[in-house]
């Protein structure tokens, strides 16, 4: 099971993302279409850096704790998923906070009026 250790971290973040989405009723028009555009750019930038850093041996990954599936020869598939799931989580958090503020802003205004 150790080979799924990195994947487990990603699963944890994904579960948080789904939880936040449901609890805060995060919705946005054309969410996935917009996310696809955003994450294509993020992936391009960070996979480039990741590739470079792995090649320069700045960081490496424990082969016993990753699945061993690699992209572009040296990047573990977990890293690719990381650069998809973390931006997704960031956007969901951002939208949830906007919802939350919108929900309590009218109350604050009411209180100010009184």
């Amino acid at each position, binding site marked *: 099971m150790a080979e799924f*250790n*990195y994947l487990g*971290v990603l699963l*944890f*973040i994904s579960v*948080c993302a789904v939880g936040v989405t449901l609890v805060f009723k995060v919705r*946005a*028009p*054309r969410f996935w279409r*917009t*996310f696809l*555009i*955003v*994450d294509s*750019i*993020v992936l391009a*930038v*960070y996979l480039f*850096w990741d590739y470079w*850093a792995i090649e*320069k*041996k*700045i*960081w*490496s*990954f*424990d082969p016993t*704790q*990753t699945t061993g599936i690699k992209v572009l020869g040296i990047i573990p598939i977990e890293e690719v998923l990381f*650069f998809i799931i*973390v*931006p997704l*989580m*960031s*956007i969901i*958090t*951002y939208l949830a*906070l*906007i919802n939350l*503020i919108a929900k309590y802003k009218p109350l604050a205004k009411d209180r100010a009026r009184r």
Partner: protein
Amino acid sequence: MTYSDLAIYAVLLAVMLDLYIIKSQMLTRGIYWLTWALILPFQLLTNSWLTTNEIVIYSPEQIIGRRLAGAPIEDLLFGFSMILLTLSLWERFKPRDTTSDKEESKAS
């Protein structure tokens, strides 16, 4: 170039893109900093899990050596740059034709 350099360049690039190229100017909005502050503890949690279990191994000569919750402090900069770039791009590419968006831009 070490990870320390890379992390600083990542932040500089993200800041430059946000302010002058993408022009979402997330850095000037309170909601961005609030989002970052909320994500930060979770970043520390996952980073510390990844590094203390040595799932990700950093070459010692590539980092300053100061660590926060097990992870090199460079990770904080790298994470900051990724959140900034992501949200900046989101604001740039999200659909603008709905009324709720108009209300939002008026409010900000």
